[in-house]
Every structure is written in C-alpha cells, then in structure tokens.
C-alpha cells in the first residue's frame, strides 16, 4: 500500500523554484490499477519517481506497506526498491551488451540469488513472457514489443508489489502497444499494483482509477 501525505518536490531552475510536486496526498491500495495523466511538466513523472524511491521529496511523508520510507538511507532505499518496486520505462532501458536472458537475470544477480536458481527462474520467466526463442538475442536484435516484454519481465521477476510504468507504450506502435498494455493488465489482474504514467488518453482511460495532474497538484482523481 502506498500512502503519500503532503509530499513536496522542488526543482531549482536557475534562480526559479519549480514545484514539481505541490503538497500531494495520495493513497493507492494493493492491487489497484491507476493511471496518471497530465501535460508535460505537470509533475506526473516526478510523482512516479518519488513513489518508486528514485527521487526524494523535499518534505512530506511516504509510507510504503506501512513503513516510513522517507528517511531511509540510500542503501536501504535500494533494497526496498529491489524488493517492492518494478520499473518499466518508455525507452526500455535494456543493457545493450547483454542478451534478453541476461537482462532479465540482472535483478536476481543483484539480490544475490544462487546461479542454479537464477537459471531456472529466468527460463520460467522467459516462458511466461513468450520470449524463450529470443533468450540469446541482444536488445538490438529484438523488436520494440519484444524489448518492452523483456523490460517488463525484468521488472517483475522479483515479484514486486508495485509496478510503475512511465509511458510504457510511448515508443511502440498502436498494435504492439496494446499487447504490452494487455501484459501489464494481466500482471495487475494477478495482484500487482499497477501505476501507469501516460500522455495517451486511450491508455489512461483503461485504468480503474484515473488521476489527472497539473502544475504539481492532483486535479482529478476518478474511480
């Protein structure tokens, strides 16, 4: 469960202070499907980064699964991120020199899981994401949809409680984008909290809960 209270994030652009997040209060329950929409600069990506513990708010409190994560050290944050959060990016962020299987294996290596177990889980995941025949391909040899499937497989292999997607279909054509959305929604059906940041109205409207942002504030929150 994600509980944000009075979260503020200020960026300094020259001598100007920009309130990317302006006193945000937000609670997302386990298993929810939330879309966050808004124009560029409305603070939706910053909100996602704060929820994903990549960015620290200047003020406010953040409880993740009942635990205050506002004051954790960098190392503790990394661990919480590894265990509870999965990220999906618009530009996939696959490591170009690694094969699909190696990219998916990465979080397992970081978590210190032994090699034999790693191999088994990667095989299982490749199978579940229908990527078995692409296991030994490098990102450059994969299509956009396949790349994003690899990225989602990597984001979910440690079974995080929340999956955060920033424009997951932004670099994909409509048909492939729909497949990726279907995949994300299937993961949500299986119990993972899903937060999607998007420009795309059609994608945003699919979510059960829709948040609209403007100038660092939540403008609308529809169920």
């Amino acid at each position, binding site marked *: 469960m994600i509980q944000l209270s009075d979260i503020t994030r200020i960026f300094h652009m020259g001598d100007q202070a920009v309130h990317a997040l302006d006193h945000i209060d937000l609670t997302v329950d386990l298993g929810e499907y939330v879309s966050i929409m808004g124009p560029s600069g409305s603070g939706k990506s910053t909100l996602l980064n704060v929820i994903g513990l990549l960015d620290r708010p200047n003020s406010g409190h953040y409880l993740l699964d009942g635990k205050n994560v506002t004051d954790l050290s960098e190392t503790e944050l990394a661990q919480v991120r590894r265990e509870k959060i999965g990220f999906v990016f618009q530009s996939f962020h696959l490591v170009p020199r*690694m094969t699909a299987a190696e990219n998916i294996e990465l979080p397992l*290596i*970081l978590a210190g899981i032994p090699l034999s177990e790693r191999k088994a889980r990667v095989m299982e995941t490749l199978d579940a994401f229908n990527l078995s025949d692409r296991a030994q391909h490098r990102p450059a040899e994969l299509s956009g949809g396949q790349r994003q499937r690899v990225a989602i497989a990597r984001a979910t292999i440690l079974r995080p409680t929340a999956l955060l997607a920033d424009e997951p279909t932004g670099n994909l054509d409509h048909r492939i984008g729909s497949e990726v959305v279907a995949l994300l929604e299937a993961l949500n059906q299986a119990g993972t909290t899903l937060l999607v940041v998007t420009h795309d109205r059609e994608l945003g409207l699919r979510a059960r809960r829709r948040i609209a942002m403007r100038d660092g504030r939540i403008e609308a929150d529809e169920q």
Partner: protein
Amino acid sequence: MKLQDTLLFSFKTIISYPTRSFLIMLAMALGVAAVIVLTALGDGARRYVVNQFSSIGTNLIIVLPGRAETAGSFPGAVMGQTPRDLTLEDARWVGRLPQVRRYAPLNVGVVELSAAGRLREVTILGSTAEIFPIRHMKLAQGDFLSATSGNSAQIVLGAKVAQEFFPDGNAMGQRVRLSDRRFLVTGVLAEQGETMGFNSDEVVIIPVRHAQTLLNTTSLFRLLVEARHRGEIESTKQAIRETLIQRHDGEDDVTVITQDAILATFDRILRALTLGVAGIAVISLVVAGVLVMNVMLVAVSQRTAEIGLLKAIGTPAAVIRRIFLAEATWLSLTGAIIGFILGQIGSLMLRLMYPLLPAWPPLWANFAGIVVAVLTGILAGLLPAARAARLDPVKALSNR
C-alpha cells in the same frame, strides 16, 4: 550482489568492449614488461660483475704497499715520501699465518719479449706457482712454475703470446728472451679471455725474483693471499695487518683489501642501479594507471543510462562502486599477467642475444611489477567508480 557475480558481471562487460579493454591491457602490459625487462637487465649486469669478480679468485685478500687514506691517495706519494717496501720476506711471514691457505707475491711490469725472430712488449707477472690456484688460471700445456725451483728461469706464456710467437704450437721447451735474460718455456696458459679488464692471454709469468731483477725493484706490487675459510677473511686480514705492522717497526704502512669488500661494494652499486631503472619503469605503470582512469571515466559517462537502470532495479551505490572497481581490477590484473609473460619473453630474448649476461628478472621485480600495476589500476578505478555510484538515478535514466 555476491562477489563472484560482481566479478563475472564486470568480466562480461570487459569482453563486450574488446578494443577499449585491449588498449588498457596493452598499456598495463607494456608497463609491467618494462619493469621486468629493465630489472632483468640491471640485475643481469650485477650478476655479470659478481661472476667476473668471483672468477679472479676465492677468499682473496690483496695487500698493497703504502697506506690508502679515505681520499684514496697514498700520503707518501703526496708528501714525497716513499712507503716502506713490501718485500718477499714480508710475504713469507704472511704465508706462515695459520689462516692463510696459500699466498703469491706479485710484481708486474712491461718488458720486451723476443723469440723465434719476433719481438713485442708483454706484461710480465712475477710470482710463484701459487698464483695459478689463487687466480684460478689453468694451463693448456706443461707445468706450473715449479714450486721448488723458484729461482730457475722458467716462463709460462699466455695463450695469445704463445700463439703469436709459436704459431705451430711448439712453444714448450723453447728459449725466449725477456729484455736480455733467457727463459725456458715450461708452460702455456689455457685461453681464458678477459676478466675484470685483465687479459691473462696477453701476459707471461716468470718467477718473482727474476721479475724483480728485470724491473729493478725490491718491492712487491701486490701480495695475493687466499684465506682458508670464507668466514675467516676478516680475521685473516687483521692477522696479516698485525704481522706486517710488526715487521715494519710498528708502522701501519700497507693497505689490505678483501675481494669480498669490493664485491659487496659493486653489488650495492649495481643493486641501486637496478632499483633506479625499476623506478623509471614504474613511471610507465603510473601512466598506464592514468589511462585506466581516463577510459573508465569515459565508460561511466557512456553507461550513464545503464547505471541509472541498475539503481532503479535496486542496486545500492556501494555495489555499483564495486562493479566498476572490479572492472578496473580485471583490466589491470589481466594486463599485468600479459605484461609478466611479455617481460619473461623479453628477458629470455636478452639472454639469448647476450649469453654472457645472466638477465634473469629478480623475483621481487616480478612481484613488484604485478602488484604496482594492480594497485595503480584499482586506484585509477576509484574516482570513476565513485562518480558512477554518486549518479542521480532520475537524471541518469533520462540521459537517453
């Protein structure tokens, strides 16, 4: 992240950038190879000198007439005084000391040698039969100056002298003239070449009394003494000194030097020289370290997005630092090992090209080369690794 996974991860990264990795390793390898080859050269020179020194005798003590002061000059010569002679009688007294295995008086001069219608100037050594074992000289033909007939006019020719005067090899039993005195050739030295600037092939050896007459002197040039045991060299030196002071009415007017002392001095000088060259070669390792740092910094900015991703999937800064340090370690370690092999090959080639030079790299140089290379590599990796670890993940990820 487990250690072996960190190592494997960074190893795979290195393989993924073959050109970059190859160039870093090459720089490291050349640095290490330079250390090894140059120290091999320096130490080879040291061993060469030590061997040469050892070949002129064992447990050798040399007595010179006159007193060498710290300045190295004979005060007698400066003051216009002649030091007291070192006589054959002195030599005989020294020879009676229990610590002395054998001794050989020595007079040296240049005299005209004529035989078989030929004429040339030769260096004559006036001594006794003991000179041969003391100076490790070997005879090709004939006999040593017979120990009992110290006064008879025998001559032993150096190999080259014998070859020049008697090209047919029939020198034995021939009569030759030194100045106006006649000598009977009773031996020819085996060819030994030059050691320590002294060529035994170009000399002739005659009994010491004849030499003193020929050279018109009563003082010995040197007295060579061989101590019985290596451990007794110092005490023997002391005993010789005391004997001679006693015989010279209480005056300390001889100089006694030991081969060991000279050898030790040369050894020290050449070791210092080797260290000096090694130090110069280490500079190339430091340069290689700077190159490692440079390339690693470029790698960090090239892989900014990857570092951002690693952070996003929950990699602590410490682990990212370790990944980059492991990379620097791999590069420098592999480079060092290649350099070690290159260095060994280089030293081998030196030994093949100059068989006289025992150019073996000393053990410490092998170790130092590798250790310094790895240490500079890791040090050079520290800054890039810290920079990678400090990257802000949000900025790193947006760097597309």
